[in-house]
Each structure stands twice: as C-alpha cells, then as structure tokens.
C-alpha cells in the first residue's frame, strides 16, 4: 500500500488491531468513553477476511448496540437446530424447533461476516473510532521500558503510537506471538474449517429445510468426515446454504486426505445431499478455528497490550455449543473497558491491564464457559466419540426400528450389549465417558 495513513494525528489513546467482532466491540467501548481510538483492518473492508460456522448469538450486543436486532444485517433467525450423527450408511438426528426463537428476543441468527462485521465496525466509527482498512499491522512499537507503545503498519510512515494496543488480530495473532503472550502454537489446538456457499432461492431453502418464510436452520453433524476427527455443519442464509467441515489438524494431516474431497464426500451423504444438492457454488473458503479452549489461551495482557477474540483463543467448540462471535464481542468489550480504566489511572502495566480485563471477563460468561468446558475439546475429539459411538447409536437405532418378524423383538439392553461387543468398546469406557460428559456439560 503506497499511500500514507489517512489519519492526520498518529497518536491515539488506544489502537485496536483487527476489525472483526472483538476489535469493533473494543473500539466501540473505547470511543464511547470519549478516548481516541484507531481501528486497523488489513482487509479492504471489515469482514473480508472472516469466515465462520454461520450463527451469531448476539444477545451479548444488547449493551453495546441495543437496537441490533433491527439494524444488523442478519440473514435468518434460527428456529430449527439439529444435531446429526452420521455413519457411512446411516444417520440419527435430534431435531429441535422453537417458535420462541422466531420472536423477540430471538436466540441465534445466521449472518454473513463480510456484511455483519462491516456493519459492526461502522457502529464503532459512528461512535468516533477511526477505521483504517487495507492496512496491516506488521510489528509492535516498544517504549524505552520495553512496554508496547503502538504498532508499525505497512503504510509509508505508518507508525501509530498508542497508550494501549488491543490485539484482535485473529486466530493466528502475530501480535500476541511477537509480544510473547502466546506460547508456540500446538496444532492439536486448531481445526481447519472449509466451507462452501451455495445459491438457492429463498423458497427453495424454505422447502428443503421445512421452514416458515424468513426463518432459518442450523445443523451440526458428528461423523461424515471420512474418519478425520471433527464434524460438519449446514445452515441457511437468506438465499444461500452454507455447508462445511471442521477438521482437527493432526487428524487431517495423518489422513492425507484433501479438505475439499472430504467436503464433497460429506455433501454426497444421503442425509446431507437433499439439503445441498444442485446448488451453484458461489464461494469456497477456509479459516482456522482455535478449538483448544482454556488450554490454548495465551497470556491475556502484557505491558501496554491486551489480547481479545480468536487471538486469545476465545472460541467455544464443545459439541452442541459452537460459539465464537459472542465470545469475541464480550472479550473485545471487556478489553476496551480495561484499556479505558488503565489509562484513566495512568497505569498500563501488565498487572493493571490484566486485573482490569480479567475482572470483567470473570464477571461475565467468557471465562466461566471456558473453564466449565475445559475438558470438552478432548472429549469431543476422542476416538470413541468420533468413531465408535456414532456407529453404535446408529446401529442400535436401526435394530430397534427394523421389524424382524417372524423373529421376536430383542430388548434394548441386549441390543446395546451386542453392539458394544461388536465395536470393541467396553462398558467401563462407556461409563467413564458418560461420567466425563456429565462432569463437562452437567
């Protein structure tokens, strides 16, 4: 980018790096307090680099943007959620619908990130934040005492000084690494998401997913990933259907399978194909997901800098709960408030920032959910849950529902015993996993 930064003053109270939901929430809360804040975005517009699993649980926005339900560019309010378990030849679903989710205050909504993130960043701009797109933060600036004091950008003369830097630069956060906040990344804590966006008319979507006009569906899928640890998803936008896979990196690597081949295979499964077949591919994309939970969370603050959103590993991938944007918004808001408090006290040391930030995260759901579900990633990606249990429950369902006349029906316990024997899974493993599930989710 050959042009200099389009900002007359290169000094801000706060510089936020990354205009995703975390960054925009941080910039919005700083701007509302009256301090100066610059919101850097390396993409040509906010949201242009972002890709996710489709559903925003934006009740967390009530405080920052009370009228978000009318204002935000949402696709469909989700009133149907299903969890599907697939084997090569079978599928078993828990399919939940609620009319309450179609009415205020709603639950989740599908949204396209290039639109949602751009809208949210514009809210920060309205409040006084200076949004600077098409600008990559390339390094941290340090004061004589080695505290973070701003960022260098790839614009000519593009150094920006800041009282506090808030790193919301995403799952690969180069700034958290440079600051020494993030340890060497462990591939086991990351999953690759690959996604296709397919074109359909709104009426065709409502027919295929059996939805009232304007309402949406979100399906999460266990199995169907060709033996690679992870899962799949299908969800509805206004005039597109998104279908994708989430693939644990070590397992994907070991399988030597190509991500798009696994996705094609998933789309062809008889339980998935009816929802996606025949749709024209409008956009294919990929993004990493920080799935390690609490185990991968970096140091949340250092002198002059705090870390929020995916950069801080604040993303929940715990089976029935797949959430990220809400954690990004809540952590970004907390980071912004912490920066304001620290600047007001004239102390932006690691201790001051960490205390101000952590107390806010502790007061809400961000750290509580991560702590409660810290065992979930290991459980969800375990061999038994990924491979054996889908086969066992589908076989059980098939045997219970297959009429075997003239043979008499068999009892559930006997069928279960036979299935466990066939799969090689021991009762004590089932009990142990059940107990772990209760402890994790209970």
């Amino acid at each position, binding site marked *: 980018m050959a042009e200099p930064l389009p900002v007359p003053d290169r000094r801000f109270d706060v510089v936020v790096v990354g205009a995703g939901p975390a960054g925009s929430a941080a910039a919005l809360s700083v701007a509302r307090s009256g301090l100066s804040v610059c919101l850097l975005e*390396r*993409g040509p517009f906010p949201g242009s*680099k972002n890709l996710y699993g489709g559903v925003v649980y934006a009740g967390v926005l009530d405080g920052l943007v009370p009228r978000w339900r009318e204002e935000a560019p949402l696709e469909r309010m989700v009133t149907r959620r299903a969890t599907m378990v697939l084997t090569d030849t079978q599928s078993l679903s828990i399919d939940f619908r609620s009319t309450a989710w179609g009415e205020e205050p709603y639950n989740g909504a599908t949204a396209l990130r290039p639109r949602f993130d751009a809208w949210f960043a514009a809210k920060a701009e309205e409040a006084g934040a200076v949004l600077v797109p098409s600008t990559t933060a390339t390094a941290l600036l340090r004061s004589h005492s080695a505290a973070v004091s701003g960022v260098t950008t*790839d614009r000519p003369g593009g150094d920006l000084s800041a009282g506090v830097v808030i790193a919301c630069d995403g799952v690969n956060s*180069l700034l958290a690494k440079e600051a020494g906040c993030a340890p060497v*990344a462990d591939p086991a804590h990351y999953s690759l998401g690959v*996604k296709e966006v397919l074109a359909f008319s709104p009426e065709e979507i409502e027919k295929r997913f059996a939805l009232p006009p304007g309402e949406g569906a979100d399906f999460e899928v266990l199995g169907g990933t060709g033996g690679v640890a992870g899962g799949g998803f299908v969800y509805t936008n206004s005039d597109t259907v998104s279908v994708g896979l989430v693939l644990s990196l070590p397992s994907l690597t070991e399988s030597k399978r190509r991500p798009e081949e696994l996705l094609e295979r998933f789309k062809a499964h008889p339980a998935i194909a009816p929802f996606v077949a025949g749709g024209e591919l409008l956009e294919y*994309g*990929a993004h*990493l997901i920080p799935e390690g939970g609490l185990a991968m969370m970096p140091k949340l603050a250092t002198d002059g800098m705090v870390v929020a959103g995916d950069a801080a590993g604040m993303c929940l991938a715990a089976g029935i709960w797949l959430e990220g944007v809400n954690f990004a918004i809540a952590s970004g808001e907390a980071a912004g408030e912490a920066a304001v408090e620290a600047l007001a006290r004239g102390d932006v040391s690691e201790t001051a920032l960490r205390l101000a930030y952590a107390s806010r995260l502790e007061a809400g759901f961000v750290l509580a959910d991560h702590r409660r579900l810290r065992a979930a990633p290991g459980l969800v990606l375990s061999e038994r849950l990924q491979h054996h249990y889908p086969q066992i429950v589908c076989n059980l369902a098939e045997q219970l529902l297959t009429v075997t006349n003239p043979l008499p029906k068999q009892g559930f316990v006997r069928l279960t015993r036979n299935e466990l024997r066939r799969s090689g899974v021991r009762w004590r493993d089932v009990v142990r996993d059940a107990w772990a599930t209760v402890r994790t989710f209970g």
Partner: protein
Amino acid sequence: MSSWTQSELPALAFEDRMATAEFRVAPEAHIVVDGDGCRGCSTKACITACPAGLFVPTSDGGILFSYEQCFECGTCYLVCNEGGAITWRYPEGGAGVVYRRS
C-alpha cells in the same frame, strides 16, 4: 446407499472451486517456503492439508509453492514438520483473499 462414498455428482474442477473466491494478488509473496528444508521432510503434510492446494511436490523431492490464491488460514505453518521451513505473515494491507458471502 453404500455408493455415496464414490460420489456420482460431476466433480467440480479444483481450479473452478478456487475461482469462486476473490484474490487481490500482492506484488510480493507473504509466505516464503524454504525448498531445501522441504527436501528432507518426511511428512510433507502441507501438500494435502492446504485447503487451497498451493503446495505441490516436485520431482526432486522438494516443494513448489505459490502464494497467489492463499486463504491466509495458517494451516501450512502449523502442520509443517520442518521447523522454520515456512515463513508466514499476512499479505500487505488490502491484498489477499476477499470473502463476500461467508
């Protein structure tokens, strides 16, 4: 029903799949791959794991990398078995992948 693994759908050519995403190509590569380091690599996991298929094996056991259609996801450096063989950063501001429907 067992035939689903051998999909009968017309396979979408990989180039056509990649052509659906917009890439604003920067003049300079944001990822640099040390081909010499790759020659000794026993896994070459990047070849299969990169969702954009940007890592191609060469006949002499090395890797040919092109950056133009990169999703900037980070998979390659995380699965790399040869510490430091991949130097990874973001493209310059405004360049790289631009999602519009995701």
